[in-house]
């Protein structure tokens, strides 16, 4: 053992603890960065390298990845995105229906049927007829507004589909670019940037991630049929087509390199796609069916009745109604409410049987074998339970993801307590090592003084 050996060992120790302190400083400065994976200086290999000197951070600094927990997190985050968006979409649909309020369809229908009953009590009255007309117009307007609101919402959701697809593409490109550089120069900072991009992607769309030995990642989407999104330098971008205003409002989505768009079932995008393609259209369809059924049933009875001028065969609502948007009181009736028929026989001004029969339609099984009001209530109940279900699922998935994040942080997160005590430990070791050098220096001086 020579004195210079002491010098050498201490010099290695100094640089080792410097590396350790700089790693600690990196950790501390990233304590608030959720995507950062903490690092640890491998003092063993730094101080006594076994197989020659290992250069570069990969050899001497460890990145404490959480492995399958991180991949679980990426897989599970899609459900949070999905149910959060579901809850928002269905809550908005619930708001569109605006129940229970005096301007909701429920009370509009009630007032409409009741106005016919009032007319039956006073069949030759101008006022009662004008009121029936007004209630009919209000009911139609409410239906029209519902249709407009649902269609507008569908279009807005379609816009969101486009925006989200753009975000997905940006992230996919980012990941692909990192993949390309990974082969030549792998770095921990690069890996952090890639993981951050994947985390963002995982909320937008359902993905599963695998990492190759050369640190390149493969990302696929879909359940039964997997569609690759990124694999090495391969990228499968999303393309969307916004239809012209008049057509069906649903935005069409496809993959640039092929694959069924039905593979996208999760994340914010999965929820938006379902909303614009099936849930909003299905509510619209049910409201349409209700508007058509009410128009048809009322017209059928109204046509068989006579008004004061003994005219029969008139429609109360527009006969060519195809949905809630086109529902309306017949323009002749709007021009002259006295045309409204009340009697089931000619020349009977006091006969209100037709008006009563129309009012009775509310208790008829007029649509799919159920009452109009029950049919409508079942739509509202369904929306309500969807909101409830989405809110429950969102809550539970948020818990799952929070737990996974805690597990991830438990392995990869920075603990200030730990870093601070490490810092003191390394600082003391550094001071001791530098003291060793000055001691060795004194020893050499002593030896030199012997001459």
């Amino acid at each position, binding site marked *: 053992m020579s004195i210079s050996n002491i010098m050498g060992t201490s010099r290695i120790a100094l640089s080792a603890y410097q590396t350790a302190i700089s790693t600690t400083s990196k950790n501390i400065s990233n304590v608030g960065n959720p995507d950062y994976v903490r690092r640890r200086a491998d003092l063993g290999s730094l101080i006594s390298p076994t197989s020659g000197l290992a250069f570069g951070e990969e050899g001497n600094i460890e990145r404490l990845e959480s492995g399958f927990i991180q991949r679980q997190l990426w897989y599970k985050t899609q459900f949070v995105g999905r149910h959060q968006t579901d809850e928002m979409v269905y809550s908005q649909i619930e708001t569109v229906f605006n129940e229970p309020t005096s301007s909701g369809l429920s009370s509009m229908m009630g007032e409409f049927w009741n106005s016919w009953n009032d007319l039956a009590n*006073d069949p030759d009255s101008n006022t009662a007829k004008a009121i029936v007309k007004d209630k009919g117009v209000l009911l139609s307007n409410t239906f029209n507004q519902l249709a407009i609101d649902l269609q507008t919402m569908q279009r807005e959701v379609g816009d969101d589909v486009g925006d989200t697809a753009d975000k997905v593409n940006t992230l996919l490109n980012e990941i692909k670019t990192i993949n390309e550089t990974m082969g030549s120069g792998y770095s921990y900072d690069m890996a952090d940037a890639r993981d951050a991009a994947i985390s963002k992607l995982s909320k937008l769309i359902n993905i599963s991630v695998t990492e190759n030995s050369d640190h390149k990642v493969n990302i696929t989407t879909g359940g039964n049929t997997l569609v690759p999104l990124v694999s090495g330098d391969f990228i499968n971008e999303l393309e969307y087509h916004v239809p012209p205003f008049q057509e069906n409002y649903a935005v069409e989505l496809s993959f640039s390199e092929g694959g069924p768009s039905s593979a996208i079932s999760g994340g914010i995008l999965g929820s938006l796609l379902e909303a614009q393609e099936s849930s909003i259209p299905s509510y619209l369809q049910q409201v349409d069916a209700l508007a058509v059924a009410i128009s048809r049933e009322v017209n059928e009875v109204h046509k068989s009745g006579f008004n004061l001028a003994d005219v029969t065969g008139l429609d109360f609502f527009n006969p060519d109604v195809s949905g809630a948007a086109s529902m309306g009181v017949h323009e002749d009736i709007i021009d002259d409410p006295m045309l409204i028929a009340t009697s089931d026989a000619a020349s009977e001004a006091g006969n209100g*049987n037709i008006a009563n029969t129309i009012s009775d339609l509310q208790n008829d099984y007029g649509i799919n074998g159920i009452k109009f009001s029950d049919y409508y209530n079942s739509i509202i109940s369904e929306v309500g339970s969807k909101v409830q279900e989405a809110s429950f699922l969102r809550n539970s998935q948020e818990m799952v993801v929070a737990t996974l994040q805690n597990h991830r942080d438990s392995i990869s997160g920075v603990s200030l*307590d730990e870093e601070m005590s490490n810092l003191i430990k390394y600082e003391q070791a550094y001071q001791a090592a530098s003291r060793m050098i000055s001691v060795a220096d004194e020893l050499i001086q002593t030896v030199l003084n012997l001459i």
Partner: protein
Amino acid sequence: MRITQSIMSRNLMTNLNINRETMTELQNAAANGKEVSKSSDDPVRFAKASRFRKTLSQYDQYSRNINDGSGWVDNNALVMNEFHALIVDARSIAIQGSDASQSEETRQVLSDRVDDMIEESVATLNSTYLGKSIFSGTDTQNMEPFEYDGSNITYTGNEGKMNRRISEGLDVEINITGSDIESTGVFTSLVALRDALAVNDDAGVADLLQDLQDASDKVLSLDAQNGLVKGHMQMTSARLETSKVNIQSFLSETEDADLAEVIMEYNGAEMAYEAALQVTSKALQLNIMDFLR
């Protein structure tokens, strides 16, 4: 488990948020007094409440129909009473006229009085209610359904019945038609009385006494039927009012919040929230740096 700063703050925030959510829900319940104010609060209870509201609105309508019908029926009773009084008067004239000791002149005067009575009857029966002719069946714009041409009374209305919907699937007929009144034979009897008095036929007048009595009885029975309708409506109205009160309380049970309970729960939630806040502030203040020199 290794606990990092991010795990601590995540858990603390989650707990604070759960407390906040509970408090917001309770605040809403206290503010609008409803536990179920939209479908997503509880779809099953919401659907139930909607049905209750629908039934209430329908019952309100039935009550309005009953009020309207009652007006008609009361008015019918009024007019029928006046009419009946005329028949009673006519019968007392008949009793006078059947007395063999009365002179021909007296009978002539009595005949004229009967003629006046017939005119008065027609005027009475041609009365209107709310601008509608009451005894003309459904031909309510026929303001003079009874016509007296000086010899006979003819009825020009129809036999239509006016219905009022007083309950689900339950209609009552609220009008008495001119045909109903004609079929009591009252007009024939009155005309016969007038003619018998005019020709000084005291035996004929005496024969008519029974006819007039029968007609009077039949008119009374029409009035009684009218009274039955009124009774029916009153009963239904009372039943509707009771049902409405019951449904109101069902509705309230279904969707209303129990304020005492809400406030109690709110106090509990507030305490939990304060505790969570205190723990949060304490836990977040703990810092290793304070313990290093």
